[in-house]
């Protein structure tokens, strides 16, 4: 979550909040190694009260899916070496929401990009090579066809 949360920053989270976060809010999750503080990007709620949250750290492009039961609390403020940032004031709430909305839209592209850039020789490279080789093949075929046509017409004459 750098640069917002740095080494030795103190994070205050409301663990009594029994609600789903809004897109863009910073949340405290528990995982197998301990706790992690990341930003909620997309929230999927089910009617039975359970759900899933897609979260992302500010310093990375990786989106992670977490179960709502892993959510411990919602971060209310961060203390960075004496400088306090509160997230419950209207300006920061609005900024967080805008930030969340932007990444929510970008998330739609995520799967497509991962799909085409994955693997040793990725799909994008294969696509470019295919288009290039096919283009060359088409030009070659056309030229062969034109040459044959020309020679045929000469033979007829």
């Amino acid at each position: 979550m750098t640069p917002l949360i740095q080494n030795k920053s103190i994070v205050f989270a409301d663990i009594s909040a029994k609600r789903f976060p809004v897109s863009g809010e910073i949340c405290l999750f528990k995982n197998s190694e301990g706790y992690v503080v990341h930003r909620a990007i997309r929230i999927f709620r089910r009617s039975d009260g359970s759900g899933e949250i897609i979260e992302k750290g500010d310093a990375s492009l990786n989106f992670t899916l977490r179960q709502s039961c892993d959510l411990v609390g919602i971060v209310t403020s961060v203390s960075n070496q004496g400088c306090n940032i509160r997230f419950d004031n209207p300006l920061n709430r609005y900024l967080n929401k805008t930030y969340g909305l932007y990444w929510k839209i970008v998330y739609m592209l995520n799967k497509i990009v991962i799909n085409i850039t994955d693997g040793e020789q990725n799909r994008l490279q294969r696509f470019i090579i295919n288009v290039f080789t096919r283009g060359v093949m088409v030009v070659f075929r056309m030229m062969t066809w034109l040459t044959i046509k020309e020679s045929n017409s000469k033979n007829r004459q």
Partner: protein
Amino acid sequence: MKDKIKKSTFYSFWQLAGFSLIIFITIPYFPVLWKSLTASQQRLAVNILYSGFAALGLYLIYYILRLSEQKYLRLLLLAFLSYLYAIMFTSLNQFPAEKFHLIEYGILAFLAFRHFSIKSNTRTAFLKSLSFVSCISVGDEFAQWISPNRVGTIEDVIVNMKSSLLAMAVIALILPVEKLRERLTRKDIVGLTYYFVVLTLFITAFITLVHEFGYEIRERNYYFYSSFPSEKLHELAVYIKDNKKDFSNMDMIKALRGEKSDNMKGRQKQLYKFVREASFHIYERDNAVEKKKYDKAVNESEIIDKYYYPVYAVVKSRLRMEKPVPISGASDSEIYKSPVKRELIYQITEKHFYIASACLIVFLFMANIYLRRQL
């Protein structure tokens, strides 16, 4: 007729909005896609871009030759614009991916002009589309600032504005002369003032959030940016060398690691900033990413030896004591990724910048009020 105008406004607006959205959402993934290509494929992509521009140029020559008025003047201007495009392309040789900004913002400027020219006259449409594209460019750089793998700077905003200006010049080249001669009315100017106020606010907010003000220090072989003028840098270096009580080696190592104490006073804050700047130069020297890696490293060494020598002396002694240790506290994330707090606005001070923006906004509002009274 009204229905036709409404329909074309609707379509041009959604094309403009859609293209702007595409610019915004592809920001984090453009480097991912670019890096996934091999070097030869990247070259191929850039060559395709050049070919596209060449084809457009040929089409423009054909189009101009078919026009009845001022053919040769237009051809001369086209040659001049091609020269400007060539300069832009060569100036971006260091980062070839940036060349796509030229085409991106060219298309955006074209779409904006098409949208605004439906209801306003040509000159107003040019000015409106220029301010609109500049606002989008500032928004684009804001999005790059929050994106972990991009860097948002005012220099890029300027490059984008130049691209849109070039595209608009190309559009002006093929427009009929009567359209270009249409004069601005008072109503147009009133409308334009709102656009310019929004643009000024956008740029002020961007510079306030993303940049820091400082000084450009030029030498014969290199130049660099600093928060202090060169005399102050010398003074701070001597102060650090002589006054070990105020700023001990331990303080310096802490500053190199980016650890800030809570109770720092005026001079100590300056010294902390000085050490951080030194750490960035040491990092840049050891991780020069440019093509001319050796030159860059040599220049950075010169800068360190001349301006930041007491800090480097501590780093060197620390290296001798224990190995391996981090050479400086700076990292990729601080220098090349957001927030770009170390990219400095130089040659103008913070105070002058804010006064100038405030004056401009006040002037625009006053012009707006004065012109509205006369309508």
